[in-house]
């Protein structure tokens, strides 16, 4: 741990933010084309965030602010843990459980801040978000357990490196096709893309966690969303699509994966939250368990 590590960490956060926010902007255009609109400029997302930062804002007490800082701080720290094309600012901190649980600090902070606003709609939104998390995370975790059992390592960068060198057939998404499918479905849940967007959907803005936010707090929540997207897509990319040998390959794969979720999301209807839970526990969890049993008892993938 040297001073340079912190500098690289800072650059990683900045880079992730710029890249993902541009990509979001481009994808707003993609969605618009799907709906036969022209769509906003590709840098519209930056404008939205910086406009929010510059506006006057209100606060509902110290926990409302503290929660927002804890949320964005936790998520920013998680970005530092993510290995990008094999590069890590702090080597050795990329254990999969560490990443998925540091991510939870950010979620808890956001939930705390939203509930601290005193608006019941925000609390209802948080309860939906947490329920959604309970739904998508279990199948995903089962697949993660399977991967760790198969490769005997919990390090994300090592798991990514193990898939490289054998073309796309080396990717876990093809080596363990059921697991890859589950991971992609779970990614939709993580990102809050349709059909699992009931907690964060634009139509729910007045009855979701975001209801009380405005000004700089809203800007922070937008930033948080971009960074969180970066973490989640990167996680799936590293675990199932071989990460990237070079930065450009990594970013290209990333853009394809994210745009794919966005396009699928554009043509999907929306689940109610209890429907999402039932779906995740029926289909992806079943597939994940079948994949796990095939690997552990059937020797698949050896």
């Amino acid at each position: 741990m040297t001073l340079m590590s912190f500098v690289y960490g800072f650059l990683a956060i900045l880079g992730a933010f710029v890249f993902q926010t541009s990509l979001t902007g481009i994808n707003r255009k993609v969605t618009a084309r799907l709906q036969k609109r022209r769509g906003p400029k590709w840098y519209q997302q930056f404008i939205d965030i910086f406009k929010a930062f510059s506006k006057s804002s209100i606060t509902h007490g110290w926990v409302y602010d503290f929660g927002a800082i804890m949320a964005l701080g936790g998520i920013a720290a998680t970005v530092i843990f993510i290995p990008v094309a094999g590069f890590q600012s702090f080597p050795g901190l990329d254990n999969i459980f560490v990443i998925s649980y540091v991510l939870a600090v950010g979620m808890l902070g956001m939930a705390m801040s939203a509930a601290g606003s005193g608006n019941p709609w925000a609390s209802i939104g948080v309860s939906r978000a947490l329920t959604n998390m309970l739904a998508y995370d279990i199948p995903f975790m089962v697949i993660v357990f399977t991967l760790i059992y198969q490769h005997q390592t919990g390090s994300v960068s090592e798991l990514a490196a193990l898939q490289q060198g054998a073309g796309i057939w080396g990717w876990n998404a093809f080596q363990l096709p059921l697991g890859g499918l589950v991971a992609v479905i779970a990614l939709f849940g993580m990102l809050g893309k349709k059909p699992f967007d009931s907690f964060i959907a634009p139509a729910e803005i007045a009855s979701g966690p975001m209801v009380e936010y405005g000004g700089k707090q809203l800007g922070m929540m937008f930033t948080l969303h971009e960074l969180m997207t970066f973490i989640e897509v990167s996680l799936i990319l590293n675990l199932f699509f071989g990460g990237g040998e070079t930065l450009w390959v990594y970013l290209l794969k990333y853009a394809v994966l994210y745009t794919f979720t966005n396009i699928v999301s554009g043509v999907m209807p929306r689940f109610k939250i209890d429907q999402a839970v039932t779906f995740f526990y029926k289909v992806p969890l079943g597939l994940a368990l079948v994949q796990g049993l095939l690997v552990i008892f059937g020797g698949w993938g050896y």
Partner: protein
Amino acid sequence: MMTMIILFMIASILFAYVLSLKEPKWGAYATLIVSLAGLVGVSLLRGSVGETVSFYYLHFTVTTIGWYFSMILLTVYFTATFFHPFWMDQLIYPAAYNALFLLSLAGTVGLFFAQDLMTLFICWETAVWSSMLIVQQGKSRQAAWVYFVMSAIGSMATLFAILLTIFMSGTTMITDAFIYFMGSPALGGLVFGAFILSGLTKMGIFPFHVWLPLAHGSAPHTFSPVLSGGLVKMGAYIAYLSVAVFPAYQVFGDQLMLQGVPLPIYALMLLGGVSIVYGTLRAIQQDDAKRLLAYSSVANGGYILIGILMLDQMAFAGGLMHVLNHAVASAAAFLAMAAVAKRTGTTKMSELGGMIHRMPVTYVVYLIAIISMAGIPPMGGFVSKWLIFQGLSHRGLIFLATAAAFGSIGSYLYVFRPLSAVFLGQLAPKYEKIKEADPLMLIGMLLLTAMSLLLGIVPNVVLRTIAQIQIELGIDPIMIKGTITATQNGSVNMLSVFTVFGFGFLLILILFLVLPKSRRVGLMDTYTSAEFIHTPELLHYGHHFYAPFERLYEKWPSVLPLYQRLSLKLKEMGEWAETFFFHAEPNRAVFWMVLLVILITVGGAR
């Protein structure tokens, strides 16, 4: 040293009783000083592992594991005593409470240092009986009965196992006696099953969990932390004895192996997995914060049981560390709730709200406790859960891993609920005037908070002791290098994680301070879809927090009716048996008396 501690404990019980009779508050302070002295005394025993002491029929010895467990229990007891002075006026028998509190402490510490099986059993029963009598002083007598009956089932089974062991092996010393079963799988299986039963009932493993929510929910507020953080951990020690000291893996060596785990042990682990899922689902449903935390203890008991039964490098270390982490976190959460209950008189989440604006320190205590309980870094709970996860995925125990993952994510749901419904949200006008908890109470709670944080940042302090225990058992110890904790399939450096997290927080704090300052508005000043609502209670979301999710399983069967039917049948059977001896007409009683006299006469003649 050991002798002094034991004599001191016994003397202090009498002293606390007499003092409390005179002035309950002094007695309460006496419990504080006595438990602190016990804590210091036992911590000095670290160097004298192997020392033995005998009192007539009772034999004690200092072991590393015994020291570890005693330290955990004493910490929990010690911090709970900070609350005692404020609760004396709410108890019916304060003197008995103080004396029994110390008696249960002495019983548990004795249990962990017991060298022979009879001492083990006597200390066990001392702790169970004294705690049962304390639970009875709470809200419900029935809760104490259920607690006692469930404990009795376990105790009797264990007594049977102990007597059988002593009879077969001819010795009472725990380590020597258990070795006898190495060569006899059938008998060994029986003893293992009967012996571990008391551990299962104590930890509240499914289906023996029914007493936990009842007893934890209705015990005096000051004793619930001790029940959940301390006494439940006695069960973990029994589980440890029955798998590590009792040669369980060798006894079941010829059984069907599942990923290297014999079937009977795997079945017990599955019970642990069921406890995790069941405890989580039920905790999500509760409205009473103490019952919610009690169900979370059921779930965490499952983690501890699975971890200890694995007896390997990772999950075993995780299980043992989770005993400490959960004890600290759970005690802190219960104490925070006790502080809220002291000020407001209720622990029902739907009746509270907005406490953060009146009790900010209590809020922070609860927040840190739940972060640890949910296993989120940088708190202690993360490290132990991480070790259990690594162990489960290393062995490929996929169903247990699924249950563990469910319990882990599910815990976000149930720990967040009291945070939101009790501390955040709208502050009801009737609580407008309440004050922060008393400074003495805050000291007790903050000690636990500091421990949770410290355990998360430098877990190796504790893992060093656990590695020592693993070396003594002859299994691969957990690897420790500086601040790095390493296993066969992964490593983590918690100090770096904490530093990076702090770095991220600092960056965002700077960003926040640079941006324009926000205007402070009231809690009622919120967006309400053009409704005009002027009562804060109506703007507070506390009922059925996870309604859509709860609806999915609200109709699932409960084991409670089964127990009720069983107890009814038992009562009927008792009444039926009673009619043999006692009846309105004196004939039967006279018959039995005559028979007894004849038997005594005949027997005496021989």
